[in-house]
């Protein structure tokens, strides 16, 4: 369970982390002239990002949603809905 603020945080964090790892991987790989190093750094970054942003960590659930209090809800009952369809059918049968 994540609240709305937490979802926003998770999404932003994911985007920033992935871009940072991509830039770092490109830079280090180019400097060391090793394609494999670039791929490994980035793959590690993707796994780490997934671990941080995908599960429901409590950190993402700090701004609890305010549901309506039950005692307040009882003071405003739900409106009743009339059912006119059955009466209409009966009147057409009577005409025959």
């Amino acid at each position, binding site marked *: 369970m994540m609240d709305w603020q937490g979802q926003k945080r998770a*999404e932003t964090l994911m985007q920033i982390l*992935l*871009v940072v790892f*991509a830039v770092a991987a490109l830079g280090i*790989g*180019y400097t060391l002239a*090793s394609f494999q190093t*670039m791929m490994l750094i980035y793959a590690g970054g*993707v796994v780490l990002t997934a671990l941080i942003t*995908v599960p429901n960590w409590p950190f993402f659930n700090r701004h609890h949603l305010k549901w309506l209090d039950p005692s307040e809800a009882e003071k405003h009952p739900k409106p009743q809905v009339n059912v006119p369809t059955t009466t209409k059918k009966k009147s057409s049968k009577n005409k025959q």
Partner: protein
Amino acid sequence: MHSFGYRANAVVTFGVAILAVMCAMASLSVNFNSPSPTADVKVLNVNWFQKQPNGNDEVSLTMNISADLSSLFTWNTKQVFVFVAAEYETPQNAFNQGNNLKGKDYNLTLHWHIMPKTGKMFADKLVMTRYSLPEDYK
């Protein structure tokens, strides 16, 4: 962001899109330095020079090839395919067809194909001139 599956899908999709950008940049990073190999081919021996039954001539050469291809290998090079080709002209055909090649002049060309880890493959060549076939069949 509403569920575990949604976030997992978002990470994978965004991750792959960024990977595509990274590969494009890696490929571009080597595009602009043009490679400059050197090569020297000596023909040590003409092993045979015969006329085949179907009318074409056949030549077998022993060559000593020394080349410096280190500028072809970058961090984005997977492998380099190298070969030497012989090229000649005849009055009938501009390129590599025909027979009766006694005493003919020909060029030896070193071709290379650079196959990248990501991106476009580049091919180029180096032409070396002034080789001659013998005057007689042997």
